[in-house]
């Protein structure tokens, strides 16, 4: 299965200047994004998943900078582009939707104006043609009576509807890659499912490559082809959806899956990961997760593990995969993950 690589990250290091100290937010990530796939990046708050994706669209906060590494997109390195060059890529080739649909639209401009604005800069469509295209887009994202809706303002839309509008704006210029930064976190559960289904159908229709940033594993199971698990600014494990859910190798992935509320037994305490994430101001020695890992090996504190290839698509950064390591079985809860209904229905269909 040789697939075309759309975007390729190599040894990316991103730091933030904070009061004269440097915060090492992305610690040497390498990642390939394939044409037409949907990749989910999961991890707890502060693991760097948003920072990583902001690099793809040149919207890193002002005090952040790429220290080393490259991101290849469309035949060039996009880590040090000028603002003018970014304007070509943003929206036109790589688009993004944000977490909170309530704040991601300009409250003083009509929906139609905001869609047409995107069309104007990338596809040079203006006037009547733009209006027509905007109506089409709204229909595509499932908004009824698009002609009337165009003239309305964001406050006249519900949260789910606004996210649909934001999606319409994002796909307006046929981007190759769509970054979804926790697109359903601010929505209630029934709307979440609708938005996810919408994204899935748009992905096929527009031939999008999706990057999904989320900490909701339920969302991930629903939409992702591949999953990258991030911890402390690094991708500790990456594999297909099935591989990560049914055959996780990294202790952090184990811990993450064990803390799924669906895996808890009634009357027992939910599993939670002990300790706190490492301080990214200080250099990290060895495996960043070792201090919180009950099964940490001595070597975890000394040397940073390399990737161990589990299968063609699956690799993890843990010394447990070394041939000399003791065999530690994953926790019991996640062995039963296959029997959990919330995954069962979805994945059976896919297999």
């Amino acid at each position, binding site marked *: 299965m040789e697939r075309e690589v759309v975007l390729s990250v190599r040894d990316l290091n991103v730091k933030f200047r904070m009061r004269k100290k440097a915060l090492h937010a992305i610690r040497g990530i390498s990642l390939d994004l394939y044409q037409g796939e949907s990749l989910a990046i999961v991890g707890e708050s502060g693991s760097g998943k948003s920072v990583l994706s902001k690099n793809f669209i040149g*919207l890193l906060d002002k005090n952040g900078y790429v220290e080393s590494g490259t991101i290849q997109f469309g035949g060039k390195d996009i880590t040090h582009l000028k603002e003018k060059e970014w304007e070509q890529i943003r929206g036109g080739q790589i688009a993004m939707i944000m977490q909170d649909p309530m704040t991601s639209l300009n409250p003083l401009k009509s929906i139609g104006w905001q869609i047409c*604005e995107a069309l104007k800069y990338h596809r040079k469509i203006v006037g009547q043609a733009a209006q027509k295209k905007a109506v089409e887009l709204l229909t595509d994202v499932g908004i009824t009576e698009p002609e009337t809706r165009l003239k309305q303002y964001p406050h006249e839309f519900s949260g789910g509807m606004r996210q649909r509008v934001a999606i319409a704006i994002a796909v307006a*210029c046929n981007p190759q890659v769509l970054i979804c930064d926790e697109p359903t976190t601010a929505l209630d559960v029934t709307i979440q499912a609708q938005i996810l289904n919408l994204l899935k159908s748009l992905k096929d229709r527009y031939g999008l490559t999706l990057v999904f940033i989320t900490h909701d594993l339920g969302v991930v199971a629903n939409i992702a082809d591949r999953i990258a698990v991030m911890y402390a600014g690094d991708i500790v494990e990456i594999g297909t959806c099935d591989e990560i859910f049914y055959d996780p190798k990294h202790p952090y992935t184990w811990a993450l899956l064990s803390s799924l509320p669906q895996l808890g037994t009634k009357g027992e305490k939910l599993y939670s990961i002990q300790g706190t994430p490492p301080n990214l101001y200080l250099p990290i020695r060895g495996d960043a997760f070792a201090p919180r890992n009950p099964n940490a090996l001595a070597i975890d504190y000394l040397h940073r593990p390399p990737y161990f290839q589990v299968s063609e698509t699956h690799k993890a950064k843990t010394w447990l995969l070394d041939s000399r390591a003791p065999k530690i079985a994953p926790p019991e809860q996640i062995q039963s993950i296959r029997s959990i209904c919330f995954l069962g229905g979805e994945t059976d269909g896919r297999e």
Partner: protein
Amino acid sequence: MLWYCVKRLLRSLGSLCIIIVIVFCLLRLMPIEGYFPNYDKMSAQEIQNGLQKMGLTAPLYQQLFHFFGELLHGDLGVSNIYRVDYPIVRIIAQKAPVSIEFGLIAMAISLPLGLVLGVLMAKKKGGFWDQFGTAYIVFIEAVPIMLIYLFLQLYGTGVFHLGILYDSDKPATAILPVLSLALPSVSGYAMWLRRFMVDESNMEYIKFAKAKGVPNNAIWFRHVFRNAMVPLVQLIPGSLLLTIAGSIYVESLYSIPGMGGLLVDVIKRQDNTMVQALVIVFAALSIFGLLLGDILMAIVDPRISLTKKAVSR
């Protein structure tokens, strides 16, 4: 939209009525010397007759009704000391145009300057213009305004070779008073605009607009500036009216025959009816300014015209 305006107008009229009642009642507590130009030389009988003639011996509520009745005809009563038996409305009519002219010219200068400075400051936070503007704002806010006026007059007259006082026949003499009025408001406009623009530029929708590939300049003008003007627009009418009404220092410094010095003058001379009339006029102006600001804001902000519940301020 219309309904919103009507509601706001009614509410403003309500507050104005309350203010009138309070001012009227308070001024009835003032010493009665204020009704007569030559109180000291009058006998008790003369004073009694005089009060009766002015209707001041009637019960308070009757006086109040009478006053409101007159007010509906546009009559604010007559002056007792400032210009004896001269209608107050006509005194104001002579003085107000001068102040309005100065206020409008000052605003025509300060508003564009302030907006440009505010935009420059917000666009590059920490840059040259931001530091310059901050220094200017701190200077204007920290130094007593009177001192600034005095130095302007002192050095300005020397630089431009002008007389110290305003002379309506020599338009050049208006430069310094207009500058004195304009310079402080520049700092106000710049400060607010910068602040609103910085607020707006940190909003999520600005990031989203960037993510859809809108060029930087377009973002600044069509999103940030446009949205920052909404709260600013609300402040403009009020600040204009205050410039017109409140240029007390400047007008007396250059002896401009405007409204500004009038209130201080009549308070010093205890002309009760004049004080009452002027306080009511100033109150009406401020309320009108707020009302105008709210209506302007409703015009530029689509969210307001469509909400059923008007936001009270």
